[in-house]
């Protein structure tokens, strides 16, 4: 099972967060159509991995979405859509879906699943249940959700454009690894402000 369970600081223990990375996905169009049809079985955040820089940045987006969920100030339909929108440095929701969500041609996909008890659902599905549903429906190769794997998926010019990183003096004279880290921090800052 290549599904990682995240234990995040300042998140209640009964909130479970799973994240996986799939490469060479062949049925992104099907997945997207399920999202559009609001099929309740497809409550996931499906994220285009080519628009993401690092684990830190992605997990930062997950935390941001959870924090507004906990705060009761969530602005999109649910925590999964909120995660996608949290990656955006602007308040434009349709642009966020376009840039960080998936389309029929998306090849590498980050999948995030958040589970928490509600009045109608006290018993949560197990990690195995989640994994089984994902592997049955996502046709691609599961790989570890690591910075190495992620950086192979990243479309750097695109991400630089999305987060306005071109010509940023903060990136001058930094080595490759340092640069990715600094870009992630700049992205987190832009995401935190979301254009406001």
């Amino acid at each position, binding site marked *: 099972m290549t599904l990682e369970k995240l234990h995040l600081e300042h*998140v209640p223990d009964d909130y479970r967060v799973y994240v996986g990375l799939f490469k060479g996905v062949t049925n992104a169009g099907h997945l997207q159509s399920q999202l559009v049809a609001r099929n309740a079985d497809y409550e996931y955040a499906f994220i285009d991995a080519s628009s993401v820089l690092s684990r830190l940045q992605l997990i930062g987006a997950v935390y941001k979405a959870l*924090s507004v969920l906990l705060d009761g100030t969530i602005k999109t339909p649910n925590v999964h859509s909120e995660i996608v929108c949290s990656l955006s440095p602007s308040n434009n929701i349709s642009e966020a879906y376009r840039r960080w969500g998936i389309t029929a041609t998306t090849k590498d996909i980050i999948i995030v699943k958040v589970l928490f008890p509600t009045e109608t659902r006290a018993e949560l599905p197990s990690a195995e249940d989640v994994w089984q549903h994902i592997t049955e429906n996502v046709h691609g190769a599961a790989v570890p959700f690591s910075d190495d794997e992620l950086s192979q998926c990243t479309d750097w010019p695109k991400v630089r454009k999305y987060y306005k990183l071109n010509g940023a*003096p903060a990136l001058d004279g930094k080595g490759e690894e340092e640069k990715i880290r600094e870009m992630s921090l700049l992205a987190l800052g*832009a995401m*935190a402000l979301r254009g406001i």
Partner: protein
Amino acid sequence: MLRCLLTNLETYAKRKISFTMTAATTSAPSTVEHEFPPPKVLLYPSSTAPQLITQGAEGRLYKTTYLFPSIPCALKYRPPKPYRHPTLDARLTRARILAEARVLVKCRRDGVPVPAVYCVDEGAGWLMMEWVEGVPVRMGINEWLGERVRDGEEVEEEEGREQKGALVDLMRRIGDAVGRLHKTGVVHGDLTTSNMMLRPTRESSGERGGGRDKVLEGDIVLIDFGLATQSTSEEDRAVDLYVLERAFGSTHPRAESLFDEVLNGYRAAFKQAGQVLKKLEDVRMRGRKRSMLG
């Protein structure tokens, strides 16, 4: 404003200790907890208990963690003010948190040494940012000068300190940081040696320098942008420098003679420094006149 700022500085050391103690007593009587309720975000579980670092007039600063136990962060919280109208209070808090976050993000992108912004909840009144290791510059300088704060009074050691090389170097680094800040179009609004940190560099944890000079090693990181504004006015920039100069005068009188080195570092980092330093003369003059009038 300057006077109240300096009073703040004088109580810094004492305050720091007493509030750390307050934070440690998490099982304190509920009256205490009621007096200082933390923001809701800090009531959710974390690997280590959040620690209250300072409690200023405007806000509180906690040390806690971001995402993982391995990532420390600073959480700046502006609690609601019961004496202010709730709607107005919420609007002001929101605006101030956002203004501070915006300035930090801009500075960080432009390569000014400031903490990175991790997460903001302007509605709840908090800002999570990178935790800067090390000590405030104020502490480093005082340690180096051999001053000790005793009962709120500064006691100087009687010793001829000939070799000021390390201090000169630090002063230039401070000037460099302020120069880069101004170059990016931001004025700090509260430049003191408490609002800049000395972050140990990777090398400085080794043997380099050594001895007494060690306490002055590290990178300057500017913090506390609560009063910062985006401005390119020479007057505003000169006032920033003047406030810093006065802060040196009152908290490190023995380092004041080296303030020129701050200006040298400033000049080297910032092309338009010349005009600002001319303005600084005017600002100093006005300050002198004001103090003569009492």
